[in-house]
């Protein structure tokens, strides 16, 4: 069944790296200010992360929003769990919870 395959694919994709970022464009060529900013934050914080360009795959782009009940990009995952978008990351940094969230 098509749906099951996509879901399996997404379940695997969010775990592809311990910290996984779904963004518009790539770290070197971001296509959105929010995506660029979150990449900058991760790099500043010295976090190793994998990325996926959601502009390159419409199926993942739409599917992931439903999969995680999160309507926008970028989306950051740690150990396969959604941390949130740029705004959540900024808040977590402010409250000092960011590293802890990444470690799950």
């Amino acid at each position: 069944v098509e749906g099951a395959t996509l879901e399996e694919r997404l379940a695997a994709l969010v775990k592809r790296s311990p910290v996984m970022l779904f963004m518009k464009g790539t770290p070197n060529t971001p296509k959105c200010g929010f995506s660029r900013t979150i990449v900058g934050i991760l790099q500043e914080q010295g976090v190793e992360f994998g990325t996926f360009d959601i502009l390159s795959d419409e199926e993942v782009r739409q599917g992931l929003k439903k999969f995680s009940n999160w309507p926008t990009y970028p989306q950051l995952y740690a150990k396969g769990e959604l941390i949130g978008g740029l705004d959540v990351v900024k808040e977590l940094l402010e409250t000092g919870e960011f590293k802890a969230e990444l470690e799950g």
Partner: protein
Amino acid sequence: MASVVGRGLWQTRSVRATINTSLLASTRRAFTSTGSFSFGAAKAAGGARGNSAMSTFGDIERKLTDRFQPTHLQILNESHMHSVPKNSETHFKVVVVSDLFDGVRIVQQHRLVQDCLKENLMANGGTVHALSVMTKTPKQWEASGGAVESSPGCLGGSKHDPQFQKS
């Protein structure tokens, strides 16, 4: 008092709400259960305000006020910062300060706001493509001094985005 950084006109509405604590308590229980969400500013300076009841801006204001009874609410239409036509209502930032966020995880606070506005999202037939969210409890808001950063600048993403290409 909000200190505003960046371009655009802030529409600030300070809502002094009388909060009914027993209503809050039961609402908090409802909010903290994970439901399944189906998915999904100030007007540009000089632009016509239009009929705010019909516009996305007005709709967002009404929904957030009704749902969160915020002690502080800011809505900024940031569409002018992006590669979209003039007078668009595609990119918004909302700042919601409410006691309803007390004890709720940040990611869940943002989900609540997104869920409140889900009909306005482009994927669900609305006009909103990007939604920047800031949520705080009144205590956190006081402590932060009411500072709100402007959102990141556009990198022309909308130009590459099939969602924006009308046939």
